[in-house]
């Protein structure tokens, strides 16, 4: 039985990581080797290998070049990565904070038309966000928000909030009310009960929600492109902008940059994988 499992897992793992492996190999190549019509697969430290063979000479040039601005670009790659990090983290944080507060309200208090409100919140995800790109652009111009980090943070928060509310409501609904009630009779105010009891128990849900919001903001391209041409350009927009570059597309640098871009998300996801699986028990109240 175990053997059969590996028979599925190993080929799937190879298939899934093949693009990443290819990116890694490309990131070690020179521009010539990267665009060669024959694939070189084995990196070597030998510096004098003719192009076209199975082996190629590995170099860290692509990574070094990420630190300096590419021809025709105002900043180096790391500047854009920093933009992505700031925008991604702050919008994920805002979504989780607002989403948790909102979900707690819907979960614990009697609110007129709760179901309608929740449906309305959910319905904001029915249309692809880009459907509203024109009105958003016009409103942003009015408030001088294009080309600002704040603009993208607000936008991603707005788009992710519905997901955050729904996810967090699911998690908070699972926390038995008796915990809060115990805190209330133990002499704590409702707000104290919220942050002393509910918040620690929502950590799982908040981590899961943060991952989803971060990934969504990290990968977003359409608005990042439409709202920015100078200041708050994120990594996806930066790489796309390298097309049609006067020196050709710098594939090794792109491969190196993409790896660096993917790593934080991968690490973040691995760190909270236990929470993602909802492995933590929801306490000892028997249901």
């Amino acid at each position, binding site marked *: 039985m175990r053997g059969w499992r590996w028979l599925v897992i190993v080929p799937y793992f190879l298939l899934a990581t093949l693009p990443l492996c290819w990116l890694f190999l490309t990131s070690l190549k020179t521009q010539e080797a990267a665009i060669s019509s024959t694939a070189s697969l084995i990196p070597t430290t030998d510096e004098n290998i003719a192009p076209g063979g199975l082996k190629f000479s590995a170099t860290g040039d692509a990574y070094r070049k990420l630190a300096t601005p590419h021809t025709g670009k105002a900043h180096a790659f790391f500047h854009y990565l920093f933009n992505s990090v700031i925008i991604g983290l702050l919008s994920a944080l805002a979504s989780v904070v607002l989403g948790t507060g909102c979900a707690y309200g819907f979960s614990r208090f009697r609110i007129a038309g709760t179901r309608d409100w929740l449906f309305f919140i959910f319905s904001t995800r029915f249309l692809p966000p880009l459907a509203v790109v024109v009105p958003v652009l016009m409103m942003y111009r009015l408030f001088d928000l294009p080309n600002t980090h704040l603009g993208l943070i607000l936008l991603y928060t707005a788009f992710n909030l519905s997901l955050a509310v729904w996810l967090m409501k699911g998690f908070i609904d699972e926390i038995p009310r008796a*915990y809060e009630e115990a*805190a209330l*009779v133990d002499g704590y105010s409702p707000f104290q009960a919220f942050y002393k009891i509910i918040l620690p128990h929502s950590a799982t849900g908040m981590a899961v929600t943060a991952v989803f919001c971060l990934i969504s903001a990290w990968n977003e391209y359409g608005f990042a492109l439409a709202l920015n041409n100078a200041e708050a350009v994120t990594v996806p927009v930066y790489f796309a902008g390298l097309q049609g570059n006067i020196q050709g597309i710098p594939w090794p640098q792109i491969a190196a940059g993409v790896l660096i871009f993917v790593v934080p998300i991968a690490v973040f996801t691995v760190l909270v994988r236990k929470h993602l699986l909802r492995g933590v028990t929801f*306490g000892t109240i028997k249901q």
Partner: protein
Amino acid sequence: MVSPHRATHKRETPMPFLELQNLQKTYPDGTRAVRGIDLAVDEGEFIVLLGPSGCGKTTTLRMIAGLEDPTDGQIVLGNRNVTHLPPSQRDVGFVFQFYALYPHMTAKKNIAFPLENIGTSPSDIDATIDRVARALGIEALLDQYPRQLSGGDQQRVSLARAMVRTPDVYLMDEPLGTLDAEHRLELRAFIRRQQLALSTTAIYVTHDQEEAMSLADRMVVMEGGKIKQTGSPPEIYNHPADLFVANFVGSPGMNLIDGQIVQHEDGLAFTRLGANVHIPIHLRVAPPRAILGIRPEFIRPANRGVPGKVVLGEYLGSHAYVHVDTPLGELVMHAPDRFAIGESIHLRLDEGRVCLFDPDTGMALARSAGMKDVKLYGRSISQN
């Protein structure tokens, strides 16, 4: 319509410590969980609210704690009107049916939690926890998390948490409901001992009539959001106010026989049409129809009396419940030993222990005859 029987409980203080006045709770969906409850509790009294699920006992308890807001009525606790105060301002200790220990805190942190925001110094907290933990025998468990503890131990910790603050009143919502039999008996005795030692007022909710009788100074039997009867356990057991209480309290419940009251020899007697059996009743006046109730232990095997045939025996070691088919209907008898199925026997019903109920209203007609203070309940009894 008919006012429930109020216990003639002797009060030691003129003012009740906790008083519920016409307490009502209607949920937004229209469910009337509690339909007007009046109850006065003395300081140090152990009150048990008993009733089937859905009778409003838990809602009543939660209103006393402040976890539910009453729709109408008042709660007075220690001369303070606490009806709409938040739970944190009432000084109550609450023990939940499912423990409700904070899973992210150790047992010790759980017990310390109620002390932490009332300015108790850390050394006082430690001393208090030590004392309470010793009383409950949980010293060894203090550093463990709730999920590492058995149900019984979790409920001990939860009792400790309710007790550290020495609140005005302990409120307990079926605290033993989910425990196994062994822990249940042990903790039951512990709760009562602890309450007696501290002489703290306690309100305890349960649907287990045996638990209720063993713990209570005074029992409050509820059904359908109303109090059916209030009284000491023997009062409730021996003189149920109506058919519901007669049936609900006691295991097995009272034998109930539908029949007539007729003139027999020189007095009134209960009989059943077609059955040549008369049970004298010591009432001067009675309606023509009645339901006779008698507890299994007041039926005895005898040489003469009501004839019957054994149809079922439930042997329980110290005694047996024997189901006997008689002209009065099937009766359950508490017998010292087993009987063979099919055996013909005679039963003697202890006339002094008989209860009579009005078949229309279900209310008790009178305390069982033979009592000194014969009282008439409910509507006036017509003579015919």
